């Protein structure tokens, strides 16, 4: 379980062995570890981009990582806008990054 993780730490010691958890992110099959948040497991897998901005389409990742800023919201199964930084991955979980939504009232766009 080395990829992206801090296994040995001079003060905090060695990371415990943990059970693997299988989940998907926008169809990609990924492996995380028991007790990890979606945000941590994705970052460990090299995924910095969590979603795109609904209006501008710009890419976004974690910002505060403790549930305050809502930047990391992803869709999990049928549940919209879940905070990736507070949600623990489960076996078989389907995480989706969401997409750009139409904004028909914005100036310059057609009605």
């Amino acid at each position: 379980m080395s990829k992206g993780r801090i296994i040995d730490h001079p003060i905090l010691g060695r990371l415990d062995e943990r059970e693997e958890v299988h989940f998907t992110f926008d169809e990609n099959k990924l492996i995380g570890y028991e007790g990890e948040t979606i945000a941590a497991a994705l970052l460990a897998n090299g995924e910095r981009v969590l979603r795109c901005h609904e209006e501008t389409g710009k890419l976004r990742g974690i910002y505060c990582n403790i549930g305050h800023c809502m930047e990391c919201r992803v869709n999990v199964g049928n549940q919209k806008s879940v905070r990736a930084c507070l949600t623990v991955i489960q076996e078989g979980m389907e995480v989706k990054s969401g997409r750009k939504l139409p904004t028909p009232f914005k100036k310059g766009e057609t009605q």
Partner: protein
Amino acid sequence: MIDVIIVGAGPAGLSAANVCAKNGLKVKVVDEFMKAGGRLLGQLHEEPDGTWWNGIEEAKKLSEDAQELNVAVECGVSVHNIKQEKSYWKVYTTKGDFKTRALLLATGAAETSLPIPGWTLPGVMSIGAAQVMTNVHRVRVGERGVVIGINILSAAITRELQLAGIEVSSMYLPGKNIVTEDAAKPLSTMKSMLKVASLAPSKLIRLGSYFMKYESLQSLAVRFYPKNGMKVWGMPVHLRKAVLEIVGDKKVEGVKVAQVDVNGEPILSTEKFVPADFVCIAGGLYPLVELAAISGCPFQYIAELGGHVPVHNENMKTPIDGLYVAGNITGIESAKVAMKQGAVAGYSISMDLLKTDVNIEDQLQQAINHVKQTRNQATIQFHPDIHSGREKIHASFKNTLRTDI
């Protein structure tokens, strides 16, 4: 009905829970994080005596005590509303609504952001996010990053990143704009860093304690601050360079840095690109007070406490019946102070709910003294004038009682 519901399983909330439970009260603690311990979990500092303040261990101790005392600690539960009814509080959570006689808000603090062009790119995160990723989740935030914002928290966490083998190439000021204000000014940053002399055994700080005494020397120090920064733990800290923009296409690729004059105004001809795969923004902390605001509790803006805080007294009581606060929601201080404040709230609640016991009153008084002692000895002080901040808020409690409620 539950006797006490505590929102937040950080050092303040858990300490309060344990005191209440010891006094025989039925306690429930809810926290939206997946582990108990709050922001303590990420903390890892070297004390002046060379020992380590290991937040994970501290949190474990508090949690084990709580378990022994039969405190119900429920993680992964968010509180989104509270409402005062005639003789109880109703607490609305993502896992159902609960009734309680007393309600303690120990929701801690949140980070102020410093908006800088490019700050929404994936790979840009708050300094606290990097701390939690590194020490709690043990996931690498990147290979080589830069930190924007020079303050006590960013200094401490940068050190933690280094410990975990993650390279931080430099610390810079944020580019000046209408939001970054003081954080973008070399002199005010210098001044606030000088107040934390005990934290960083560095050249900057040693020089600092000398400069502290003489205002004029401080501006001299800023004027003649070395172009290549001063090294703290082997990493250059730049008081005369600022990040003007974070650059990248789909994620962070680096930052645009320029020298700034003594007022923080960038000297554009000195602009340079510094590569990085992550960027941490450190804007400081403010009390997380939404639930107190929902309750209708009066507030006071006190800069020394980090912003708007719910009015409360030394017993951690608000002017609203049955509503208590403890920890960073009352002002930004270290976890040790938060713990002691939690104990005060615990005794205070016990005294109010149990009424009869005189003994508790003595313990409450002692606990209040412990808060003061801990504050006086704190190695980490977020705001230099914390004492005057505390006095102001306690005074405003008295005024509130005098005028209405």
